[in-house]
């Protein structure tokens, strides 16, 4: 999936890379397109990045089990720090992959992954192939 991100991911300017463990990480450049109040990232853009990182992580996990369709049920986002004029990264972690439901977490950070600017928790419905 990281080879062909959907139109919304392209609109946010997202690109994908893999971290040292081979886990997908999405990268969002700073710019007017993702700006909220002057000088800061829009919370919606940060959330969009994290939701996309969660879906990419879940897609990766599902691929190993034959794939499936992913439908969002809900998301809870905590905003911890203002997003500044810097590149933002996000990684999703599948905390549980069930038959029908997946629990996924994602964080977004700028300089230090240990100091996230936001965190999200999502539930997804899975329709297995």
């Amino acid at each position, binding site marked *: 999936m990281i080879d062909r991100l*959907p*139109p*919304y*991911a*392209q*609109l*946010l300017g997202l690109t994908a890379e893999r971290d040292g463990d081979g886990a997908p990480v999405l990268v969002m450049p700073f710019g*007017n*397109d*993702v*700006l*909220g*109040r002057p000088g800061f990232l*829009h*919370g*919606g*853009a940060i*959330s*969009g*990045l994290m*939701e*996309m990182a969660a*879906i990419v992580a879940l897609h990766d996990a599902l691929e190993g089990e034959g794939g499936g369709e992913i*439908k*969002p*049920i*809900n*998301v*809870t*986002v*905590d*905003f911890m720090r*203002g997003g500044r004029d810097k590149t933002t990264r996000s990684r999703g972690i599948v905390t549980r992959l069930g038959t029908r439901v997946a629990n996924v977490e994602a964080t977004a950070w700028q300089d230090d992954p240990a100091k996230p600017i936001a965190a999200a928790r999502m539930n997804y419905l899975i329709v297995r192939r």
Partner: protein
Amino acid sequence: MSHGFQFDPARFLSSRLGHGGLLGTSYRAHGADWAELELPYDERLIGNVDTGVIASGPILSLMDMATSVGVWLRANAFVAHATLDLRVDYLRPATPGKTVIGRGECYRLTRSIAFVLGQAHDGDPDDPLAHVAGTFMAPDGYPR
């Protein structure tokens, strides 16, 4: 706030700068403690190319903006604040081709925290596609 101040959401939302401009959100209506914004369907917002359904991110962005404006309306002040948390329940997929309408309401305002609720639909308010709940925080406080 100076006497007679009136926060104008239509004027505020007419700005085409920033993330709202990218998504194409615009003003629709407002009341004393709520605002309604709209997000026209746009293929650039698609999250699932097989179905043409827009991603969840633009809906969250729309609801973040609608609830934020709802807070400024209730406070009748344009104060700096930040979203503390936002929860979105995606009740059903948005219908491809249809404009999404998001309504955000501030139902309680304290010195530093604003509590918000919101609903999104794509034509029929009785058939919502998302419900949201969240809080905002104003570092310098909201006027009481």
